[in-house]
């Protein structure tokens, strides 16, 4: 994929959030996006047509992360009110609220079968919640982290969490093992490569690091952007050819995956780019910002 193919043309600006947008995520097929922000709402958009579809209101504080099941029927979200909400997409009602975190909840994800929600909290724990039963108790609490857990990723068999204690911990359910990879830097955001072999970890020293999951080897470091105080997202493009991430100065960066050179950067927002999310198939990307907008980028 050449540099020209990178999504750098702004096709839509989605406005609606009052206050900063903290996260924006594509759904599994890339047709819709979900965003959440400081205005305590979650919003559903069609990014390709630039339409706001629905607003989900119930959170009592800012919403920090949102995730949708692969069948688009359910949402989960979390935020400053220390709860994880489990929503019905169509009706916009909260099906369940999972309480238990002792602090703000930073990240949330469904598992593959949408039966479990795993949330990462400021209380140094990962908690797994059951969507199938009516129990509101966590199935499991993973509290081996030494500091706030910022981000969580799930594979079919593993739970991966990135924490401010500088570690990315992989909890493998098949073999009952925890693998801790210590970066020595607070990990802000983790995201999986599309082939599942690497973890991209955005660290608070303005560096994005690429970790080989099998060996625990540091494959590459991507620098140039600013990330010192905000929780910024980073991700790989759909082809795994480039790494992209936001910066606190409103820029969006693209790095080459292999040689870590900045292949492109452009001013995307007036303020901190909190979240970037890449379309699962197309060359399309969304960025959200503290300035309250979500931009849709295409080639």
């Amino acid at each position, binding site marked *: 994929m050449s540099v020209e193919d990178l999504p750098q043309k702004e096709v839509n600006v989605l406005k609606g959030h009052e206050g900063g947008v903290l996260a924006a995520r594509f759904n599994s097929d890339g047709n819709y996006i979900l965003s959440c922000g400081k205005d305590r709402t979650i919003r559903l958009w069609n990014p390709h047509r630039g339409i706001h579809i629905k607003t989900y209101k119930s959170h009592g504080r800012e919403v920090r992360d949102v995730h949708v099941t692969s069948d688009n029927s359910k949402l989960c979200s979390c935020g400053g009110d220390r709860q994880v909400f489990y929503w019905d997409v169509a009706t916009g009602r909260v099906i369940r609220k999972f309480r238990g975190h002792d602090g703000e909840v930073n990240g949330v994800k469904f598992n593959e079968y949408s039966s*479990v929600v795993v949330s990462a909290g400021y209380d140094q724990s990962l908690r797994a919640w059951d969507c199938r039963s009516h129990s509101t108790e966590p199935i499991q609490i993973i509290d081996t982290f*030494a500091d706030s857990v910022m981000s969580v990723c799930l594979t079919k068999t593993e739970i991966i969490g990135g924490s401010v204690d500088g570690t990315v911990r992989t909890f493998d359910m098949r073999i009952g093992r925890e693998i801790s990879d210590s970066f020595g830097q607070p990990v802000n955001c983790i995201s999986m490569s599309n082939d599942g072999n690497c973890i991209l970890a955005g660290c608070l020293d303005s560096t994005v690091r690429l970790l080989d999951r099998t060996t625990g080897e540091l494959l590459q470091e991507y620098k140039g952007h600013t990330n010192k105080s905000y929780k910024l997202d980073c991700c790989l493009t759909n082809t795994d050819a480039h790494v992209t991430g936001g910066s606190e100065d409103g820029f969006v960066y693209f790095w080459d995956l292999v040689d870590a050179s900045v292949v492109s950067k452009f001013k995307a927002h007036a303020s901190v780019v909190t979240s970037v999310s890449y379309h699962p198939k197309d060359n399309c990307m969304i960025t959200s910002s503290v300035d309250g907008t979500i931009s849709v980028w295409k080639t």
Partner: protein
Amino acid sequence: MDSDEEDFVFFGTPIEREEDSISRKKKAIAESSGQLRTLPAWKQEVRDDEGRRRFHGAFTGGYSAGYYNTVGSKEGISLCWNYNAPVMDLIINRHAVSVNFKNECVGWAPQTFVSSRKSRAEFKEQNILNFLDDDEKADLEGRFLGTSSQFDTFGSTAAEIARKQAEKEQKQRPSIIPGPAPDELVIPATESVGVKLLLKMGWSRGRSIKDSHTDALYDARRQARRAFIAFSTDDTKVKVTESERTKDDIQNFPEQSVNDDAQSSKITPVYVLNSKQDLYGLGFDPYKHAPEFREMKRSRLSSKTGPGHSKNFSTRDSLFGLKSGKAAPGFGIGALEELGAEDEDVYATGYEFEETYVQEEGEEPSVLTLENPKKKDQKEHGNLPGFKVTSNSDYKMERFEAPLIPKDFVPHHAFSGPREINRQNYEVPPPDVPPPEDSNLKLLIEGVANLVAKCGKLYEDLSREKNRSNQLFNFLSGGTGHDYYARKLWEAQQKCNDQTRVQLDGKMPPGVQRLTAESRGQILGEKPLEKTFEDPSSSVSSKDIQLQYNLVDTFTKSESFSELSEFEKPFKDDPAKQERFEQFIKAKYKGGLRSGSSSLAGNMSEAARAQERLSFEAAADAIEKRKQSRGSKFSTPSSMDFIPGGVMEFTSGTVEPTKDQPVVDFKEKKLCPKREEFQWRPSPLLCKRFDLVDPYMGKPAPAPRIRSKMDTLIFTSDSVKGTKVEEPVTAKKDISVLQQPANKDITKSIAENETEEEVEVENIERPVDLYKAIFSDDSDDEVEDNNIMKVENQEKKAEVANNTLSRLRAGDFLKSLGKELGIEVPPDTPYPTQKSGKDAPQRETVNEYAKPDIMNGENNMVSLKHDLPQDQGGPSKDDTGYGHMLDNRNIKTKGTSISDGKSKSSKSNGEKYEDDRKVKSPLVSNQNHRSSSEEDRSRKRSIKLDREKYDGYKKTKTPSTHRLDYRSSSSSEEDRSRKRSRHHRHRRHGVESDSSSDDERDRRSSRSKGRREKSSREKSNGSKKHSKHHKHGKHESPSRSSHYRVDKENSYSRKEKRRRE
């Protein structure tokens, strides 16, 4: 039975006739003799006193009501009839059936029972018609909405009307078939608009709509195809027949057209001719891309259907399979896509089919039957039309030899299973045997076990070798205490496993130092938080070093120890000893296992050697630490002071706080992420939800994981602390501990940190309960000075503490070993195992210490008490709440006092003590003096009870979980709050208004003394519950772990002190 027969006859009869009633009357009389009572219940009839049947006549109403609302099936109606029949309400289905059978109402089966559990919401759709009478329906008739016949394009309204008409008629003349007439039989009377249009266009009924000349075209194409087939098949016979047939075709041509007309008139209402026989979805064509196979399947089907099916169909199909899909219109194009599909008019095929059918029938019946078997024969060989079987096949099944397995191959694959699952959890642990009576031996065993666990089996062998003659070491070679040794060794090994894992942390290169909250804060440029006692990082690193130290026995040290500078020669005065020491150091850092003693000291006794080794270890340790501390701005001379006598203990904490960590390093170094692995047990439910097999399935619950972080080493000791904390040691003892020369490293280091930050300590909110757990029993203990129970408790606790501590702190072992070997251990425990009897003199000293600071303490107190009423808003009804409040206050003061207590300055000790006393027990102490002996006794009794309970708690505790710890502390809490409630009760009685001065309070308490006395029991009971409740709330509240950590440190050191007592 005559009467029976009659009963059956009358079953289902609508209304009884008059004449019957007479006979019934007679019968009733007969029955009154009891004849009928012998009948089974379902045969009995309910009659009135005149012998008439009751409960009949519900036939008309019962039908529709039963059908629509209750019964649920047509069959059930008859059941309903029976039910309404006089037979009785006791009849159940089965019986009714049999009865009916005799009545020849054959033909229905009772509905089988279907559980409604799965399909709960299945209701009969009810509409208004179900409830209307016929006349009402008739009234309604004209008022339903429907398409008027004028616009009835598809004839639906017409059909509807026709059906209704049929229904009406049916009612008038009942037919054999019950129920409404099937829709299929009712044909709409009017034509649809489409038909009308066609008719207007000149189409007559029964004719095909097709153009006449398409026929000709089609025939031509068919001929061509036939020719093609004939050529491609190598069968001459086929050719012949084909040619024959073409001849026939030509001959019969005129006839055919006649036939065509005749046939087509019959076929106008075309339904699906070849019905759907497969299970595919409608319109789905499995042979869409492989039409050759359609033929095969069809032949198979037709052969199956056999002669009952039209033979012509099958033969024609097999012959002209390419056309076969064109059976009917409306089948979809998919079914028509065949070889020649593109040149055929797919939409015109609906009637063509019939034509071909007719043609073939007329043409060649004989030929077909002739060639039929041959064709089928071919099919059976799997030949497709147009293909033939080759004589020689290139394809041969290639076989490969299985690879040769090496002879030495062991068919075993080690899967990466759950970590250390076999070694740790599932190895059968040696039975837990009680320790030997001899406490010396016990300690020795534990020590050796620890060392063996650390250094390996080799050490055990060596020491066995060496100590063969020594009676004490019998346990090594199976003597007394061997079981206990095995157990201890196992435990130690388990612990060691955890530690080695942890130890990797300590071994990591300096650049990749574990990121602590503090260093992170520095990276981020955060303003450091107000320091509390000692930042957790220092404790972590100190643990690191300790562990490193622990393992120097087994691991090579890269660091060269060649130059021992002047101050590193601790044995200057004794050159020989110094020499030995240097050798010791060399051996130590050369790595490997040291032989028990160096050859240089060959003439020394065992005991002397052990002692010397102890001192060497200590000296080496000190030197090492000094090296590390060099350059750090923190010099901790006190801990560095090396006392050759071995005063220094090998515990953690000597290391200076790593405040000035080279944080900058992080930035420069290219980090390589460090990978660690731990065991982690996913919950079974989680595995289930992820659709995975639980790796721990069927395996016992894991031993509570000792978390691999450094600080959790302290956590593990919690259980011990739990017991220790509640230990009703008198305050004096604490003080006495503090009085001891502060030669314990940990105490020192903590104290150093604390003295530094003493001031800030007060500001910091602390988890209340821990402090309570630590301190709140102090005041009570004054009362119970002479309690004998306590002594026992203490012994127990000392034992527990010894156990766990010796296990936890491997470094400690050497000392204990030395002790047990009969070496005089340096006088670091000047107060060996104090019993409460010795309390009195110590108290004196305490008071002495306290004196200078009494004023200070009192000031504190006064301010506190000022606070109190404001918060509380007057005397509270709920004494626990009040107590809680008060306790919070106390705790804050105690927060201060802890730090004081930890510091070496005896002044602050005194202060602390005084504080405690002042806050907690002004009343008690007063009371002590004033109260009658009776009162005292009663209280003691209650205390004793508490204590017993308390002991119970203790016993249930296992010293490894720290969850349990909470429980224990809660119990102690409970205990304490009970005690406290006593105080508060006093206070509540006394305090009517806000008061702050001690004197006033005293007076009041003395006033309320009498009342207090009688009600003390019940109230304490009541408040117990309350306090429990309170406790829960507290635990739920979030508290930062750093606080915990600090607390743990504190209590840990406290414990240690107590242990020493």
